[in-house]
């Protein structure tokens, strides 16, 4: 696993997309979700991905998250070429490098926060005692160690998203993929969550790629990438507001 104190923007490339195309369907009904993009992300960066629906940003996130593979072009994650992988190979990559945070939190219902956070470690065959300890550390990191035995139903939206972040962090991933992490939250909770992400990026050096619709949320990131019609139309490093 990655060392926790990675310097921000080391200059090393974590993600490298070259000529990536994703085409659904064939012939007349062919849809080019990604029309051929080149995209690099350095270790320790914090990237906001923006774009309207159908712009290709979700497809790009699925490819980055090793949930999908490009139709054409190459995707290297930490030097591993993903094109030839499928099924369990992609799963292994996810296990090693990636943590996910979703808009809808996606916690297992009727399952305590602690057990939700533990789950990725269960699939990594970590022993119960170590698993518990790691999950508690991770919950502590998001400030929820006192809610470990609460089920998602007993937590507020903001708290649920923190649990989800704790779950994504428990495996110490290099890459955190967040799909509209604040989409379901009010502005106060949004601020909390974004500050937490910024903090994680700064202190732990986790590379974060985050999809969002709101420029306000995007302004927390170091870099903003805008997708349109399957292409990247904008790629900037704005002055940070936060």
């Amino acid at each position: 696993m990655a060392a926790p104190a990675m310097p921000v923007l080391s200059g090393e490339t974590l993600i490298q997309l070259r000529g990536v195309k994703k085409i659904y369907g064939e012939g007349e009904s062919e849809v080019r979700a990604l029309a051929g993009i080149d995209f690099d992300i350095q270790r320790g960066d914090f990237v906001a991905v923006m774009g309207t629906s159908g712009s290709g940003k979700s497809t790009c996130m699925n490819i980055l998250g090793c949930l999908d593979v490009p139709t054409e072009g190459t995707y290297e994650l930490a030097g591993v070429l993903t094109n030839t992988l499928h099924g369990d190979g992609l799963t292994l990559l996810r296990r090693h490098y990636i943590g996910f945070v979703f808009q809808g939190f996606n916690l297992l219902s009727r399952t305590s926060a602690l057990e939700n956070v533990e789950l990725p470690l269960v699939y990594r065959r970590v022993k119960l005692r170590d698993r518990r300890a790691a999950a508690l550390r991770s919950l502590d990191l998001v400030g929820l160690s006192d809610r470990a035995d609460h089920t998602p139903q007993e937590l507020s939206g903001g708290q649920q998203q923190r649990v989800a972040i704790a779950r994504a962090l428990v495996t110490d991933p290099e890459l955190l993929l967040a799909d509209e992490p604040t989409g379901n939250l009010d502005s106060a909770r949004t601020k909390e969550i974004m500050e937490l992400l910024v903090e994680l990026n700064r202190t732990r050096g986790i590379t974060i790629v985050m999809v969002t619709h709101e420029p306000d949320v995007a302004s927390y990131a170091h870099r903003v990438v805008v997708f349109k019609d399957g292409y990247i139309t904008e790629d900037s490093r704005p002055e940070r507001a936060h």
Partner: protein
Amino acid sequence: MFLQTVLMALREIRRNTLRSILTMLGVVIGVGAVIALVSVGRGATQKVTEDISKLGKNLLMVSAGARVRGGASTASQPLVMADMQAISREVAGVHAVAPGSTSTQQVIYGNKNASTQVTGTDNNFFEVRGYSIDKGRTFTQGEANSGLPVCVIGSTVKTELFGTQDPINALVRVGKVSCTIIGTLISKGTAGLGQDQDDLLLMPLSAFQRRIVGNNYISLILVSAEEGLDTSIVAESIRALLRQRRHLPIGTDDDFNVRDMAEIADTVTSTTNALTALLGAIAAVSLIVGGIGIMNIMLVSVTERTREIGIRLAIGAFAGEVMMQFLLEAIVLSTMGGVIGVVIGLVGSFFAARSLQLPYVIPPEIVLLAFAFSALVGVMFGYLPARKAAQLNPIEALRHE
């Protein structure tokens, strides 16, 4: 990991307690029914075999008259003492031979009377039929030869006529004859078809022939074959001997009848076994129906939990692990049903055996088989839903509402 998955399955089952119980019910009833039916069937078989062997060990019964299906036996030359002596003398493998002429008579003592089976016989009868003296004695040689009216009574007759009184040396009236009781028999209980084996009165054959029936025929010869011998061979020898003695030409039917109790026991046993197997098979069908119930619920469960499956796949579960999770859930459901079914089957058959007055038989291989089959049902019917779960695309599964 395996343990973890089993725990996960158990939690999932507890989460939908009512649904899980209803799902299990099919397997519970299937396994329970198989075990209960086979257990009661085995009990019945055992009871019948025991009852038949109670009639006497390695017993063969020879009577005059051909075996006619669905009608009265044809009139024929009766058996006499000489036939019995010939069997005793000439047939190999015969351990003991006793006459057993019977006639139903009123037996009267004081103001009480009972109708009972009066049997004219000799002392070999006790050994051949497996009776033993409770009080008093058997016949003396003198009594056997002279035709003195003495008798030994079974416990039913004793209770009916004497209650708790001592019947030894009492004088009873058997038909028109006064008869002295010289002994009583130890109770043998009820035989195969509900016959009371203690409802009998024994007297020496000579007395029976002379005083009760008034002829010198023997209606039944009881032959006890030597232990460990194949009774059918002995039966065949007796047949050959009697055909010869009766000068029956080759090609004609027997005008007598040799019944082999072992053979009857075998027939009865194979009949009840076949019935048991049939009932067990019908019950096994309900097990399969139970399995279909499990498959149905597991398919519903996979659809309901599509999103959960998506989460698990995204955070690093292999497709095989998701498959294993759902498969184990089905197996845990069906084996839990199996365990409960085994308990219910065993308890149910215990009470059934008690109320039917059958011996309680636990068929261990059937218990094991039914249980193994219930687990197999889980594998068979859990496979399809589990594969469906494992083949879900994580992207679509996560989008599932």
